[in-house]
């Protein structure tokens, strides 16, 4: 299994509070991604990174920010959590894009009350 961990695995927080989710990899892959998974919507890309300090937005980036200060860590921050951000968040990594497969972490279940 690819070495990807996510922390925390479960979190309950209140509306308006900041939340940071962490993804850590031991594979030295260049690309890292944050997705959210919601029933009926499948996987939707929030942000991705193509190197240290290099990030770009995905299709559902509003309300989220990311940072990557080291190759192995990719942080997702909800500046002020809302109930619509209740979801399961997955981190993924890949060596490159195009023909390269993605490896997924175990997910973080976030509930915003």
């Amino acid at each position, binding site marked *: 299994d690819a070495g990807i961990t996510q922390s925390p695995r479960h979190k309950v927080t209140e509306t308006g509070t900041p939340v940071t989710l962490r993804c850590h990899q031991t594979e030295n892959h260049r690309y890292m991604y944050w997705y959210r998974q919601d029933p009926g*919507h*499948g*996987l939707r890309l929030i942000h991705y990174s193509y190197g240290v300090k290099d990030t770009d937005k995905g299709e559902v980036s509003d309300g989220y920010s990311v940072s990557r200060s080291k190759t192995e860590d990719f942080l997702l921050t909800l500046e002020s959590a809302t109930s619509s951000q209740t979801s399961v968040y997955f981190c993924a990594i890949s060596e490159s*894009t195009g023909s390269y497969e*993605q490896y997924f972490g175990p*997910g973080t279940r976030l509930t915003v009350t």
Partner: protein
Amino acid sequence: AQSVTQLDSQVPVFEEAPVELRCNYSSSVSVYLFWYVQYPNQGLQLLLKYLSGSTLVKGINGFEAEFNKSQTSFHLRKPSVHISDTAEYFCAVSEKAGGSYIPTFGRGTSLIVHP
């Protein structure tokens, strides 16, 4: 923008029966195609991928998929399913050039295998 359509949100089937999960994509350029599986409470893992060459691709756990360029489809099949195949299946597409190399995912198909 690329779009991926998984035509069935849920597919119920009896054990040992054949199954086909359908996937269509919108891109007119050359693509790479993937099927991922997600077992309950886990992340996704790769089942198979099509990069080039033979249009019939074999993957893990007895699954195979056929790339049809004219119909822009990449349907997943298994001749005889097992209870353990119950999972969510996702089709994903990335473009080779002139478009997004970041894969786009379909909404998923829930395969439910009944005894």
